[in-house]
């Protein structure tokens, strides 16, 4: 079965965020980028769907700057068959809607039955692109999936809800699924994969311009936390800790 999987390139999770000159997005100086962690689960599941259904093509799509070729190449090395870079050097100016619209147009051209995404990109933390693409294409949508199985034209999924309970969701294909941690263990990239990836097709096209629906007014940093009103040593410090929790912070 042919599968499309969308991946985003995000500042690495150990980035110390500073506000850039525009005042509306982060200062990119010195920022390292990596694949959005949840998208690794999405790619792994795409590969498994292909393998379980006895073949097909896994196309990995990224909307981002030219440098994102690196992340796409890495997913080709992991096992995807082809890649499309929707090139846009001004990714920060897009909101989830504007990203989703461009991805939806690309996905429609591929004519796949299964679309995988991450549950959330850990930069803007939207968690919207998957459901938006589904709504735009009129596909079914299951978000934050921790288990999925496809049989014929139906997918049976489990998604986590509050307090460790799970919903069993049945979706008719074509559908978009967003991957939550726990869905699978992503496979590692191996040397033969890296060699093979060099010959796999990576198409680069200009991303269609789509006006965002949200305007960013300002990006700000939360006030730094005041560290250490009290530091004690060992179990002898417990009574003083509790006294302060009760009298100073009033949380007990």
């Amino acid at each position, binding site marked *: 079965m042919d599968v499309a999987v969308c991946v985003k390139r995000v500042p690495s999770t150990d980035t110390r965020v500073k506000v850039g000159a525009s005042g509306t997005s982060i200062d990119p100086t010195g920022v390292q980028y990596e694949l959005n962690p949840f998208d690794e689960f999405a790619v792994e599941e795409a590969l498994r769907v292909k393998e379980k259904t006895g073949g097909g093509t896994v196309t990995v799509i990224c909307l981002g700057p030219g440098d994102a070729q690196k992340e796409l190449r890495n997913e080709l090395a992991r096992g995807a068959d082809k890649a499309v870079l929707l090139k846009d050097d001004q990714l920060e100016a897009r909101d989830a809607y504007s990203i989703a619209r461009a991805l939806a147009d690309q996905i429609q051209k591929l004519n796949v039955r299964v679309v995988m995404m991450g549950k959330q990109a850990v930069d803007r933390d939207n968690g919207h692109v998957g459901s938006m693409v589904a709504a735009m294409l009129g596909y079914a949508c299951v978000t934050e999936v921790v288990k999925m199985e496809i049989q014929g034209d139906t997918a049976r999924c489990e998604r986590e809800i509050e307090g460790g309970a799970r919903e069993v969701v049945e979706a008719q294909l074509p559908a978009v699924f967003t991957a939550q941690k726990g869905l699978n263990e992503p496979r590692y990239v191996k040397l033969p994969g890296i060699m093979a990836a060099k010959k796999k097709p990576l198409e680069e096209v200009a991303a269609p311009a789509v006006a965002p629906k949200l*305007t960013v007014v300002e990006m700000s940093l*939360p006030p730094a936390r005041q560290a250490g009103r009290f530091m004690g040593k060992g179990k002898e410090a417990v009574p003083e800790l509790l006294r302060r929790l009760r009298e100073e912070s009033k949380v007990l």
Partner: protein
Amino acid sequence: MAGILVYAEVRNGAVRKASLEAVSEAARLTKELGGSVSAVLVGAAPANAGEVLGKAGASEVIALAGPKFTQYSGDGYAAAIHKVAAQMQPTAIFVASTPQGKDLAPQVAVLTHAGVASDCVGFTVAGGKLLAKRPVYAGKATLTVKAAESLLVATLRPNVFAQTDAGAPVAVTTREAGEVSLRAVVKEVLAAVANKLDVTEAPVVVSGGRGMKGPEHWGLLEALATAFGNAAVGASRAVVDAGWRPHDEQVGQTGKTVSPTLYIACGISGAIQHLAGMSSSRVIVAINKDPEAPIFKVADYGIVGDVFEVLPVLTEEVRRLRAAS
């Protein structure tokens, strides 16, 4: 009509508290924005829906009925809500940022040609427009956003907005949702193994890291949580990746973002990805044997010590305090 449309989520036969918080916040905002608050729910309305939603500030409660609406369907619910929104033309649509709300809101937004401000923690009105504040980079920064056009769809983080009850009960109007197709439908809900409090919902979170040495010692954290009575147990990613705890307990940038009143980090070093998920807690306590651990840089109170010595004493003292009060 201007005003705010709020989706009221129903679980286990009751309107969720997070939805009542959203209605309360919407009522506060309509005082400045104008218009009123309409609550919409899908499927059968709980008996007290008009009372609780009215008290929270809704001046109208609409229940969308349809034979297919016995279980949640993201696309089905979105289509039904869209019909109401198209008629009402609200300035904003509010949805609680729960697992269901996060699934639903973007689908409603696409149908209504709007953008979604996700997981909002604050709203203001400026120049007649709604501004939403939302954390990004797991709380390392905050964005203030507004709708580029007229309508803003927003999801509201639970436990952030105050629930009010100054309003008056209203009657529930039932409307036929009409024909909608259902592409994804909930078939059943598998109950949790143990009915535990979610880390995102608990007022107190007790979290354990690699310093706990192994899953067999989690009883120490559970005992402390039980002593508090209203606490959930969380974990660092190191612990989840080691398979000691399930991933729904993970706190941090790739886990859950929590902002409880009290967060107690036990044997957690305080890596930047962990801090991202818990720095907005009101009070942070850290117990770690390494005085140089970065967690102490964000902790209000710290104990340098061995968790295996400190935790049993802490648990005993908390238990004693609570029994006395």
